């Protein structure tokens, strides 16, 4: 009988620990997807693939997402703008593309004042194509994407990710909602309703879309989509930083304007 009780204690204890570990948020560490872009790759394809790396397997957000260990690349840094804006002015005589490439492959060559030299050489973990995709994405955050298919092709199989492509050609920059210009369809496809409420649809996390045109003008709405951390809506200060700054990148220019005009008409 005693042995049976011991067995029961052991089983119950193990079960509790297993259930507890399954009750917490589950995060798996993914393997960076191999990219097989050729010279014909578009900027949109590179930006989309770069964003996936930045937000996921590239591991960038562990430091750059907090703004304490490393500069936050997605938001303004001491009035110098997002990384796509400030990259060209960081080092004299070095354009944005060259600066970002050096930052990823020779991180010790320039360290932003106020931060430690903790950045690793990303060639040890990412392929040349992956590094160029990241650069394209960072450029797209407020700047012009100048990375080209020639850069990617020239990189060849350099870096750790070189070798056999895993197929798929990376993420294609397909237009959101099939290129639709229907603003409600676009807001739905861009998952805006997860946080914002419009009529009966949407959640309470962010400011409601109903009446937004009466509260702020079209410019503020546009900025709120492209650089959501630039302003904070009254009454939602505690949610500052919650909205991913990448949502605006999902729209093409025509779609963005359609959404902005639609929202500014909600008075």
């Amino acid at each position, binding site marked *: 009988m*005693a*042995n049976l*009780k*011991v067995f029961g*204690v*052991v089983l119950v*204890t*193990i*079960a509790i*620990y*297993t259930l*507890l*570990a*399954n009750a*917490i*948020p*589950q*995060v*798996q*560490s*993914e*393997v*960076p997807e191999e990219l097989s872009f050729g010279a014909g790759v578009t900027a949109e394809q590179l930006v989309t693939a770069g964003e996936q790396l930045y937000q996921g397997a590239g*591991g960038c957000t*562990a*430091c750059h997402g*907090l703004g*304490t*260990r490393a500069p936050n690349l997605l938001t303004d840094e001491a009035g110098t703008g997002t990384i796509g804006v400030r990259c060209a002015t960081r080092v004299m005589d070095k354009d944005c593309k060259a600066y970002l490439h050096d930052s990823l492959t020779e991180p010790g060559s320039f360290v932003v004042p106020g931060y430690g030299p*903790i*950045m*690793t050489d990303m060639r*040890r*973990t990412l392929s040349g194509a992956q590094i160029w995709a990241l650069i394209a994405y960072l450029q797209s955050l407020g700047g012009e994407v100048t990375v080209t298919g020639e850069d990617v092709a020239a990189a060849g199989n350099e870096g*750790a990710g070189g070798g056999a492509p895993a197929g798929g050609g990376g993420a294609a920059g397909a237009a959101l909602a099939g290129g639709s210009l229907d603003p409600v369809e676009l807001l739905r496809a861009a998952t805006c309703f*997860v*946080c914002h409420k419009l009529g009966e649809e949407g*959640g*309470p*996390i962010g400011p409601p879309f109903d009446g937004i045109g009466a509260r702020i003008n079209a410019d503020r709405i546009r900025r709120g989509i492209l650089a959501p951390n630039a302003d904070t809506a009254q009454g939602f200060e*505690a*949610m500052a*930083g*919650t909205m991913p700054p990448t949502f605006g990148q999902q729209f093409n220019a025509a779609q963005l304007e359609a959404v902005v005009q639609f929202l500014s008409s909600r008075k």
Partner: protein
Amino acid sequence: MNRVGKITIRLIGAVLGLGALALCLADPAVAQEAAGGVREYGNFPVIGSRAAVWIAAQVHLMFAAFVLGVPMFAVVVEGIGIATKDEKYDKLSKEFVRLLLIAYSATAIWGAILTMFLVTLYPRFWGHLSEIFEVSIWIYVGLFFVESFTLYLYYYGWDRWKKGGAKLMHLGLGILLNVFGTAVLFIADSWLSYMMSPPAEVTPDTAPGMVRLWSAITNATWMPINIHRIIANVVFGGAIAAGYAAIRFLNSTTDEERAHYDWMGYIGNFIAISALLVLPFAGYWLGREVYEYNQSMGITMMGGFMSWLWIIQAFLIGVLFLAANYYLWIGLGRIPGGERFVPYTKWMLLILVAGVIVWATPHTMIANRDELAQMGGTHHPFLGVLGVMSAKNTAVNLMILTTFLSFLMYRRANKAPVVSWAARGSLIQGIVLALAAGVVIFYGVYGYFVSAIVRIGFSVYQVGAVLITIVVVTVIDVMISRGAKSYGEIRWGRMPARSQYALFILVVTFTWLMGLMGFARSGIRQHWHIWEVMRDTSPWAATPALGSAAVVISTCVLIFLSMIAFIFWLGGLVEKPVLASARPAAVPGTGGLAPAHGE
């Protein structure tokens, strides 16, 4: 040599034979074939190759920790027996080693299984590793062989070399056993730590044959892992020995047996908890070396996808503190005089529970939109305050102080000091303890008002205050207890069954924690067999989430505990337990003031 010994020798022989075969299979020709693209990975049915290797490695490590940890305190206990000329320590030491003897073959079997799995399921990786470390692998095999026979000499020579110089020679064998065991541990650690932190000059293009062996061995995390594992092995060995004693206690049929296994359980628990208190410092060193070696790896470990793992770890360590203290508090009931400390235990329980709650509070919560709306932000307005390091460091240091106080109460329970300065000494002890708690709380609160870099330094003051207090208060207590009168002998064996179940919870929790930390150490390499040198391109390269890992960890714990229960049962069939002369329960009410009997 008895039957168990012969069976064990045969098993070891078979395992060494298999191991040699495995090494032959790792011939460079095989590795070249793998590198030539013929085969990089094998496929284990149903559970996949990663889970197969994971389980084999983890169960092997659990057995290895046990067989390396036990000799460390067994030889110390034998030494105490020689110094005090008290035979009960000698018998206890022998019983510890008897557990070791039987578990040794299981360690070797799982080691061979692991080797086989690596050779057949990860041939490219194995070829790479064996080419770099081949000389150390040969030395490892030789040391393993020598260690085995030293163990046999140590155990089977116990009764033959019992007196005078022969006894000292026997003690020397025990020390030698530890030397060989530690060398085996250090060599195996060099292989796994190389996977975590290969030397900077090694790149994906470096041919394995060009990597210098000594450079590969003395990599950045090698020594921190060595030290961490030595301490953790003592913790684990003590806990398993206590678990063994508990099950024997519950199945005892005589007072003599109950007294012996009650005492053995207490000693095992004492060893485990004492070593556990210093383990975090080795852990900090290892963590710091990981950060020094590669910031990305360190951040992945503490702030990346593994950040929630530390909340689970906090919960498990909380269980350890609660169970260990509970066991000690129940133990006061078997000590005449212990009842005067019982009223304090409810307050100590309060401190421990509050400490666990604070320690297990996450700082940043991954929440869904409804939870975000309810919290009013990404940080919980109340819990966010408790989730920072200032609060956690304060909580854990107060928990350590509380546990130390439990040991102190236990130690003083049946003693009536006779030295003239006893009252003043006790007062000083109380003041020192209160001062330590004050320092811990002061820097905990102050930490909220300074920058992070200053706050990190405060943890040194907190830990320093606690460690100094433990040393000072213990020294005073030893001096106060000189010549103390006793309220009566400890009634070994007079423990309720629930105390033994607390020991089992400790065993399961230690074992599970070991599996969890194994996942943490190995998982921070993410999709690399060898960090930034050899990429894992297998279908199992992604590092699983904690929920999936927990299933594998629990499987390993179940396999290990089932096997060790079977092994202990098998040992009991062949050989009668060696009973120490710990006295059975004294008749209650006879606790007059007699010379104190050491516990």
